């Protein structure tokens, strides 16, 4: 039987290309604030609903990816989404992981 | 949607006729290349203008020259805007084959391709494009100068530089 992992709905913000995730009531920047979908139907419905935000020029390119959710902590199952959720592994001062750092001149 | 002109030529009024449908008694018609090849005498016997539609993989070089001479319109299909074969077909029709009739692009294309289409000798567009005459006019004015010859007779800057 094929395992169905919890799904995270993600996209990119149109204005600056930052990765965003579907959370309660909107698009959030931090993966930890995303709302995992546990059923395939719910995930697909959310993906379709996201087209409205594409048309509204909020986001582009929505898609779903697999994650594990353990004690409320979301962990993507692919290297790609792990990196996308944080930022370049070779520049810890850039991307989401650096959100707490002051912006560079 | 009626065809829109992107040149100085007004688009002609033609009726598309499917391969298995009878030709109408009167009026300008557009037939497929296959039908033209199979029924050319019948098609040209009518005293009205004839157009042919070429799929994007069909080269106008394959049309018999005597047929091309009698055609008033060649419709070039653009199944996707990414399929840029029509630009070559139009340019070859206009230059190498000396076709003087109307060249029409039909299918899917972007407003931003209009400048290039006009340069390649395309006269009119027909498709799902939401476009106004003003937008066409803007598109045709995108660039004042051109770097290379095409089918529009415009002098390239290479020549302009040296008189």
């Amino acid at each position, binding site marked *: 039987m094929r395992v169905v992992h919890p799904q995270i709905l993600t996209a990119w913000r149109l204005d600056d290309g930052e990765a965003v995730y579907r959370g309660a009531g909107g698009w959030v920047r931090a993966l930890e604030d995303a709302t995992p979908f546990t059923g395939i139907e719910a995930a697909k419905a959310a993906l379709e609903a996201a087209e409205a935000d594409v048309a509204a020029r909020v986001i582009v390119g929505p898609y779903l990816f697999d994650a594990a959710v353990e004690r409320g902590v979301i962990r993507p199952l692919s290297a790609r989404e792990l990196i996308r959720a944080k930022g370049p592994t070779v520049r810890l001062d*850039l991307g989401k992981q650096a959100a707490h750092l002051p912006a*560079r001149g | 949607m009626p065809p829109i002109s992107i040149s100085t030529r007004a688009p002609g009024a033609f009726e598309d006729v499917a391969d298995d449908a009878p030709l109408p008694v009167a009026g300008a018609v557009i037939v497929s290349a296959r039908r033209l090849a199979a029924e050319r005498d019948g098609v040209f016997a009518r005293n009205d203008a004839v157009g042919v539609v070429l799929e994007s*993989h069909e080269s106008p070089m394959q049309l018999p020259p005597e047929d091309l001479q009698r055609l008033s319109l060649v419709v070039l299909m653009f199944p996707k805007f990414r399929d840029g074969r029509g630009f070559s077909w139009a340019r070859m029709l206009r230059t190498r084959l000396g076709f003087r009739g109307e060249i029409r692009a039909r299918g899917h294309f972007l407003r931003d391709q209009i400048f290039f289409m006009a340069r390649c000798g395309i006269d009119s567009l027909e498709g799902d494009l939401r476009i106004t005459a003003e937008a066409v006019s803007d598109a045709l004015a995108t660039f004042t100068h051109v770097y290379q010859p095409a089918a529009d007779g415009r002098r390239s800057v290479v020549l302009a530089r040296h008189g």
Partner: protein
Amino acid sequence: MYRYDEFDARMVRERVAEFSGQVARRLAGELSEDEFKPLRLMNGLYLQLHAYMLRVAIPYGTLSSRQMRRLADIARRYDRGYGHFTTRQNIQFNWPKLADVPAILDALAEVEMHAIQTSGNCIRNVTADHFAGAAADEVEDPRILSEIIRQWSTFHPEFSFLPRKFKIAVTGSPQDRAAIRVHDIGIACIRNAAGEAGYQVFAGGGQGRTPMLAHCVGDFVSRDDILAFLEAVMRVYNEEGRRDNMYKARIKILVHQLGADEMRRRVEAEFAEIKAQGALHLPHAEYQRILSYFAPPPFADLPAVSATEGAARARDGAFAAFVAQNIFPHKVPGYASVSISLKPIGGIPGDADAAQMDAVAEIAARYSFDEIRVTHEQNLVLPHVRRDDLYAVWQALSAAGLATANIGLVTDIIACPGLDYCDLANARSISIAQDISTRFADPARQRDLGELKIKISGCINACGHHHVGHIGILGVDKKGVEHYQISLGGSAAEDASLGEIVGPAVTADSVADAIETIVDVYRAHRTGGERLLDTYRRVGAQPFKERLHAAHQH
């Protein structure tokens, strides 16, 4: 170097206006992403993992100090303070906002730069030898033809919607420093038996999923005819290249499918027609006009050997090492070309921060007639430096962290941005480069290993040129875990060859060990000053495969 005339300047301004209009329409909802995407790609704007990425063209890798300073300004003002130099001699900015891109393009246009056709299914930046105009073995400065091609291919109405992207490279020397055999069209400047200058044209090279070396389709094409000939190749490709499958749409697939002879026949037939019509005959006056922009700078009359340099080398071992590794001989006595390594030990290959770009601009203005080159190996070059000034240049580079003496050595690694940045990637490449670089950091060891070109790609698209690495490394995804396939024996030079895979893919933490194993085998077998590439060609893959297999078991 080339300067825009009123025609060029207007063309770029109008393009910026066109794209600004397209951005406005996108943001106002008049263009969907599907409609906007091909337009933004033709202006070099990608959407990557974390942000947009803007690829700015540096035609044939040549830029002035003023232009480099502008790139530094853009990095500071609109980006995160750095840029990445690529294997096609361009620069990439990784964090622009969409709404800022028109302003960035305006800033670029002010210094005669642009992002035109750096992506999309059109003719891309024409790349050339980074020692153009300086190399002693040069038959003709490849940038003259490169500029002619740049203009002819810009906003080409017939060839802007090709089956796939199209890359052209030109070498001016018999030693190919432009990798022409792995380009869609590769051109060598040559002389025929009568001593006349002309071009040998190759077509159908490329890397990616199905790497192939280009075949000669034109043995000798005259200057007058070269544009007509290139137009013939493009037309055959545009008309007959595959449109049904984007992985089989490059011209290399067409050449492979037709066979080189048939391809040549079709090109020649088309060329005959174009030539007969005459419109693409290149006027001699235009060739001369462009040639004049590449006239040599006012070189001083100097002795071949510099006493200043000699004294500095004797005194300063680090400077001596720099000269031994990073200096390329110049055709004019008393001058040299200086390679600036963007591969600091453990650093990110090809990246430079704004301060470093400014430093390079300053040094070039003072010591290199204002001219800088970008190489397809992600380094920079100061093409014309007096040997008397080498020590001062080295000191200035050292102060900016740009004096790593490793050009062509094992730590001079090419790496694409990979999974740290790129939406297409399967695995990280930069971190692998850093591991290898750190492992092999010892300068004496590096010198002992000699010329060793490692090239790393994070996916099959091969932007890191791994197929033509002496050691090639390809990142693959095995069940969500990054793995690396290693190949040996590739070369991008005139002895072009494609690498051969030498074992099953290994995990990230095993790559540096695998390189050590390969290097051990090389050292065990090498004779007479051979490079690793030469040893591999002589002894074959077997010794390497055996040792890698044995090492992997542990």
